[in-house]
Every structure is written in C-alpha cells, then in structure tokens.
C-alpha cells in the first residue's frame, strides 16, 4: 500500500514535477518560484511511514522485541523501496543532478515524518512534512535561487550544510524511534543514580 502511494506520486511526477509555482515567501522579492517536484518529494515519505500504522494498538505495545524488529524492518524496507522508486523516476524524468536533489529531499522528509510519527503516532506522521513544507518555502527562500542554509530541498547539490540538515533530520527521526518507554526510563534511572553518586562523593582532601 505504501509503495502504491509512492507509485501514484511517481506517475504524477512527469506532469507536475517541472511546473513552476509562484508562492509567497519571506525573502526580498516576496515570491518563491517552487517546482512541483519539491512538493511531491515530501509525499514520497507518506507511504512507508503511514503503512506502519496498525489497528492493534495496545496489543502491539505488549508484544516482544521481535515484533518491533519486524516493524522497523518493514519500515526500512518500505522506505528504501519507495525512495528508490522515486529516485529512479526522478532520474528518468529530470536527470542525474536533479535526482540527487530529490533524494536529499526524501532523506530529510523521511526524518521529519519519522519524528512526527514518534510524537503524534504513525497515523499522523503526515503532519511533520506537511507543516514543514510551507516553512521551507516561505522562510527558506531568500531571493531568486537563494536559499537559507537549512533549506535541504533546494540548495545546490554540492552544498554540505543541506546534506547535513537532511541527514540530521533522518538521524533525529530514526533516533526518536529507538527511544521507547523502557529505554527512556532506563536512561533516566541511570542519570539519576549517577547524579546521586556524584553528590555523595566525599570532598577531595585539600
């Protein structure tokens, strides 16, 4: 289902991807010219992430580590398949450099969707990319072909800051899923014990 949704977006890409839309922006000119592919790329992450929503709810949270591994495995597989599908379609439609830009965009969007999924639940993962998209367009565009350093969907392909931002978002999103209730409690307990031990340490001799 997730791949099907990405497939549908890939089908739309050749028709909408190259259209330039005039959108309001905070930059000097007040307008940003946004190509369709930058928006569609945000949607490429919806399929794999929303697919993780399951109606079993509580039953799942009570299952063991194996089930969680399977879930993350399916997510990783789905995400890779969808990203690859979208990347290859972009490669065919726009060519190499642009396809790499699309790929970088997907990496960032995936991280945003994962982060939203951790905070709001799998079903509401779309909130992340959909809320970030207007921010990226409005404040990320500083002028014609000029973008803020963190604008990971539009800055030149050789821009290290944009790659770091996209990768950072992905790491943040993925990392958020590693922090489950038990690990969080363990970390808090560990820190608490350490703090107590430090405070009990006798003052060193003068």
């Amino acid at each position: 289902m997730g791949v099907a949704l990405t497939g549908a977006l890939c089908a739309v890409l050749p028709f909408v991807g190259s259209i330039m839309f005039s959108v309001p922006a905070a930059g000097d000119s007040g307008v940003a010219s946004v190509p369709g592919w930058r928006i569609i790329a945000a949607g490429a992450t919806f399929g794999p992430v929303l697919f993780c929503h399951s109606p079993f709810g509580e039953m799942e949270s009570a299952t063991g580590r194996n089930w969680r591994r399977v879930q993350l495995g399916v997510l990783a597989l789905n995400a890779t398949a969808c990203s690859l599908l979208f990347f290859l379609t972009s490669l065919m439609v726009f060519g190499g450099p642009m396809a790499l830009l699309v790929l970088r965009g997907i990496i960032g969007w995936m991280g945003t969707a994962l982060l939203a999924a951790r905070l709001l639940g799998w079903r509401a993962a779309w909130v992340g990319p959909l809320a970030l998209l207007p921010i990226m367009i409005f404040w990320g565009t500083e002028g014609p072909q000029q973008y803020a350093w963190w604008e990971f969907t539009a800055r030149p392909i050789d821009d290290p800051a944009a790659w770091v931002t996209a990768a950072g978002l992905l790491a943040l999103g993925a990392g958020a899923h590693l922090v489950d209730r038990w690990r969080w409690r363990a970390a808090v307990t560990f820190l608490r014990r350490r703090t107590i031990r430090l405070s009990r340490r006798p003052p060193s001799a003068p």
Partner: protein
Amino acid sequence: MLLIHVKRSPVRWIFPVALAFNLAMLFFRNRYWIGVWPETSAAAQMPAYLTSGLAAAAAAWSVGAPHRHGTVEQKLPLAVPRWRREVPPVATVLLYFVLISLIVQAIAFGLTLRTNPPGIELWPGYVVMGLTVICLAVAFGHVVGKALSGRFAAAVAGLAWFIVSMYLGSQWDFGVVSGPVYNELDTLTVMVRLLGAVALISLAVALPNFLARERAAVSRRTERRWLRPAVVVTVAAVVLCAVTAVLGSPVKGREKPAEVLCVGVRLKVCMWPEHQKYQSAVEDIVQRAERLPAVFVLPGRFDEYGVSYQMRVVDGVIDLTDRSGLPPYFYIPDGSTWALSGTVATEIMKVSLRYCAKAPFSKGEQVDLRANETEAWLEAFLAGGGRPDYHTNRSGEAAAAARRGEERANHGSEAEQFAWAGERVTEYNAASCL
C-alpha cells in the same frame, strides 16, 4: 451539536499552532504592508493560502472519524441523514480555519487602522479571497476523506491540495502574494468565487461515501437520501464554477485616481493617495534631488505606476503601451523607496548626461563605468544612503563601479559629494562618443 464538535474536534489542538504559524508568516517578513489597506489584507490573506493544506488534511481527517472511532454501524439507522450528520464536523474545521484567518486579518487591520490611510474599500477583497481558499481546501479535503481509506486520506488531501492551491494561485489568482495599490479586486468575481467554494463544500457533504465497505453496509434506500440535496448542490456548484470561469481573474487594474498625492515643486512626484505612508520618504527623496548641483537637470514630474493613465489589462497582463507624452513612472514594490530613487536617478542621468545616440552607444569602457558609478551614487544619495534593498544581475567591473558609487554616498560631506559628482558629469559630457 456544532458546539460539541468545536469543543471536541482534534482541530482544536491544531488551532493555536496554526494561528501562531499564520501570525509568524505575517510578521517574520517585510512589514511594508502596514499602513496600506490592500497590502494589509493581501499580506494577511497569504498565510491562509499557504496553510490551507492543513485545512484540507484536517477536513479529510475529520470525515474519517466514524471509521477511526468505530461508530459507522451504530450511526447507520439514525434519523438524521448522513449528510446532515457530516455538517457539524466539516463546519468545525471550517470554523477553526476561518477563525484563524479572521484573527490574522483583524490584527493586520488594527495595525493599519492606527494610521488610517485612505482606500479602506480596497481591504475586504483579499479577506474574501483568503476565506475562499480555506473553503475550497475544506471541500477538497472532505471529498478526499470520503474517497480514500482513513490512513492515507489526510496526507493525500494535504499534499494534493498544496499542489492544487498553488496551481489555482499561480494560474487563476485564487491567492496573491501582494496587493499593490494599482490593482483592485472585482467584487462580483470575488463573491461568486466564495459562493462557489461554499457550494463545493455543500456538494462534498452531500456526496455519498465512495468507500465500497461503507456502501455495502447501507441499504439502497438509505443511500438514496443524499440524492436530492446532491443534485441541488451539484447544479449550484456547476453553475457557480462556470460563472467563475467566465468572470476570470478578479485582479483588475484600477482606474486613474481622481485625486493624486503629489510632493515637490521643481521635481514633482505624484503617488496613489493610498500610499500616504510613503509621503515623507518621497519628500526626502525629492528634497535631496532639489539640492543637487546645477549640472544635474531635474525632469519635471514622476508618477507612480497607474496614476497618470488608464491601465488596461490585456490577457491578464497590464498593457504598458501608448504612454507617449506621459511622465516617467515608478513603483514602490514591497514598500521599497529605493525603487523610486532608482527611477529618479536614471531619469536625471538621462537628461543630464549627453549619452551617445548612435551605436555602439559608448564613450569608452572606463568613461561608461564612471557614469555607472555616478548613477549608483545618485541613486544611493537620493535614497538617503545605505545599501540597495534589491538584488541586481550586475557582475564584474560594473558591479564594482556601482558598489564604489554607493560607498561614496555613505562617506564624506554633501558638498564633497556634489563636487565629485559635478566633476564626473562635466567629464562625461566632455568626452566624445566612439
């Protein structure tokens, strides 16, 4: 019933975030819109246009609530027909997003009201435009929510609406990025669009559920209950959409104003009366121009775009032909008075410098560069110093010359600057063409 939905809808959590987001979009940018009515409502409309994707997603999310909550079966035999039961949730989404838009508009309105400039009649058009986009987004989201399963509906609705709205904004003027004073919105077109959008919401509500599993659970007779309202709103929506298409873009060039706002004596600059807030800035520019040494010849008058002639819109583009005998025009785009100082500088240079009339229109590279430097100085001097607030595509020596000219306007006394500039003009006029 509406109150219960308003109190319990998940959109109430989105409301403060979306409101903050909208206000941030209004304030964390150039604030030139404060003090000019059409710019005020256009600027406050713009966040609604950008965040309408969230409204579409929320509408799709809300229509899927019976599936998420597992209430489909128990609601099937209720006396109130399905389409009437859909009204409170869709009205709730609409209410929250309309409220956000109105709050943003009210705040913007209050800020401009403090100076109370003329032209308040230009304010409501863009407010209605913003509301229309929200209505369209809600209608779109509602239909998508009915057509797709709950999991993907909101995401698809939000993303698809983002693209659709940008298309509508770019191609059909359903959203604008600014509201310049030389434009106005056609009241009839704007109102018809709003009515059409409301009719589309009604149509979205009246439509049956497209999901096969829901259809299977309902008897044909139950399903037929939507038929009559659906036919009525379909006809209404089709008629309104057709009228909208016929009426075309609501953005129209304004008629020449009966009274204009003019400043200066030797150099007269005339503006739209709605641009009252720029009066003192323009007066400063005019006074600086009037202080220039005698080698600089002042053209008699400058008019703001659209002030001195009747604008015609041909195929959606303002026709600029046939301006013979009219004074040069200037813009104040996004509140930038640099545009005026640039235009005045260019026109002064045109009448003060003896440019070459024949190809290759040059007096030698260095002489031309020095003339560029002088023009850049003049522009910066008229603007009162500082750096231009726009980007140019100048490069190499031309850019360096312009930078030198701007630097000069920021250093030294006025007498020194005038002496330097007068020397440059005399030097240029003495040089011969290639």
